[in-house]
């Protein structure tokens, strides 16, 4: 029972790191970025290739996965996405889904379509037995890393100058500009950070989720569910949503395996019926 809860939380944590960037672009910046998973895949591949082909230790690949994905995010934001901020959501959807297909084909061509596996260092594999609780070391590691990330993110968005500028820029870009805030730079930086986090999520999740070229498509639904269920006010909504979905998914597969993968959709439907705005909705302002 506790083990299931624990596995679910670990899974939810990974989902959150993967999806939190999307909750910023989609929730705060109102930009429909279906290509979010591409950055996660890039991060995953960075880790896999560095580990398997160059023997770089797992922990050392994590910051690199973040940096590469963030850099790619920054470049794409400046060259492509920036032209789409003012376009209709349909244009954004079509553009980003096109980007997904291109990324899938490119990864298939360059790296190959097989699922990539990594082997964790012995320090992070194996299991711990704490009384009734029997847990995987790596999942514990995931929970700790992700919890730290969540705390940092929450602090940045709500407590720092950058956070308040970001919120201002999102709420009313014109007024923010009038007050001397460089909105473009803030959006670019935010986008890069979101992409970097996705990359980090892909790297952390490589062991559990597996990395292959169809990754951005396979997990797009999960990201969107996290953001939809979580609502669009800051970091806590998607965080709670990701944990809820992770636990529901794992517990569902354990207790009612007949329902299998449907559990997660059931939870989404239930939440959206009760709270159409998501768990933590922003006021009507």
């Amino acid at each position: 029972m506790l083990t299931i809860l624990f596995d679910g939380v670990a899974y939810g944590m990974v989902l959150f790191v993967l999806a939190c960037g999307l909750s910023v672009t989609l929730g705060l910046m109102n930009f429909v970025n279906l290509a979010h998973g591409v950055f996660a895949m890039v991060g995953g591949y960075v880790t896999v290739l560095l580990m398997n082909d160059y023997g770089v230790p797992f922990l050392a690949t994590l910051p690199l996965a973040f940096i590469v994905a963030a850099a790619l995010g920054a470049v794409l934001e400046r060259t492509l996405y920036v032209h789409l901020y003012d376009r209709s959501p349909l244009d954004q959807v079509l553009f980003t889904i096109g980007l997904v297909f291109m990324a899938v084909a490119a990864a298939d061509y360059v790296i190959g379509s097989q699922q990539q596996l990594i082997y964790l260092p012995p320090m992070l594999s194996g299991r711990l037995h704490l009384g009734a609780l029997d847990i995987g070391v790596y999942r514990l590691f995931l929970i700790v890393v992700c919890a730290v990330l969540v705390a940092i993110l929450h602090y940045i968005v709500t407590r720092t100058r950058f956070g308040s500028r970001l919120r201002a820029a999102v709420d009313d870009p014109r007024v923010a500009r009038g007050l001397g805030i460089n909105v473009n730079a803030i959006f670019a930086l935010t986008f890069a950070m979101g992409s970097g986090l996705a990359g980090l999520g892909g790297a952390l999740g490589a062991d559990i989720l597996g990395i292959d070229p169809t990754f951005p498509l396979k997990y797009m639904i999960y990201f969107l569910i996290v953001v939809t269920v979580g609502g669009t006010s800051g970091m806590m909504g998607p965080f709670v949503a990701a944990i809820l979905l992770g636990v529901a998914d794992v517990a569902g597969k354990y207790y009612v395996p007949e329902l299998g993968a449907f559990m997660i959709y059931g939870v989404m439907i239930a939440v959206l019926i009760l709270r159409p705005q998501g768990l933590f909705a922003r006021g009507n302002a």
Partner: protein
Amino acid sequence: MHRRTMLKGLGAVASLPLLGSAAHAEDTVKIGLILPMTGQSASTGKQIDAAVKLFMAQNGDSVAGKKVQVILKDDTGVADVTKRLAQELIVNDKVAVLAGFGLTPLALAVAPLATQAKVPEIVMAAATTIITQKSPYIVRTSCTLPQTTVPLADWAAKNGIKTVVTLVSDYGPGIDAAKAFKGRFTKAGGKITGELTAPLRNPEFAPFLQKVRDLKPDALFLFVPSGQGAALMKQVAERELTKAGIKVIATGDVTDDDQLPDMGDSVLGMVTTHFYSAAHPSPENKAFVAAFEKANPKMRPNFMAVGGYDGMHLIYEALKKTGGKTDGTALVDAMKGASWTSVRGPVKIDPATREIIQTVYVRKVEKVDGQLYNIEFDKIPDVVPPSPDGN
């Protein structure tokens, strides 16, 4: 009157190039090879494609006075694409034989076309029992899941395993394997204490494996399609099932030769049953593996490759028997009852069911020269594909 003559004239002109290509087609036998070359099952496609190329390189591209041309198409593992490609191959390319088919739904999608067009459909990979019943033009050179599962159920019953939990992928072959195992194992006095199915496109096995751990059976029976074994076995190792006293047994799809070298030492000692291991100690197989690895560096042939290799052998033999005639019914008739020594051991096409009768081996993962292999330690000769309940 006038118009009709004109139309006739036009028709004659229009049919001229067709006549030309028909004459050309007379000396060429086209084989439409439909495989998932990209997508999740790409490893299946790559293995079969490599084996088909190897067969052609070894046996020449002409047989019975005809030139053989293989047209390779990628269906990405999606059934409606397979069907469209098969249709194009039949109508536009006028192929004499369709071959390949990486997954059950892909083989099934083409069955009605094979019947309608009277084109033999050689199934080189897909392994659900019902496939060959869907068209009299389907001949299979891989196996059926019950065929490779039943010997494992027998082995388990004979080796002191009393309770088993089954965990399979939730689609045709998985259900087939679980059912066959259950039927056979319970008949032998064993007990199935849990039947789990995991979604096919689901890399997170943690909850299922945790459930297995909590159910504490003597053994866990696994089936996942070729290409997913490594991911599954990694999580099995992470859950430390063996340490919890649960023996892990599986069909050879899980310890597939394509992925086995990368699975790590946690799979050492795992018992599986299947029709082919790259370590099969026959001279034919040694030559095959050497040639395959020479042509495809860093790639070890797996059972998919052997299904493809034998499929080509069967097509060549059938063409020899018909004297190069490509009539579909004649070709299938020529295939019925064909028997030869494959790299996997002696095989025969059952004339009644168009299934392959073959030896199934019981193997154990061992390290040979620092590499993991499925080492055969027992065999059951001439296994006829059993009914889906395993009896």
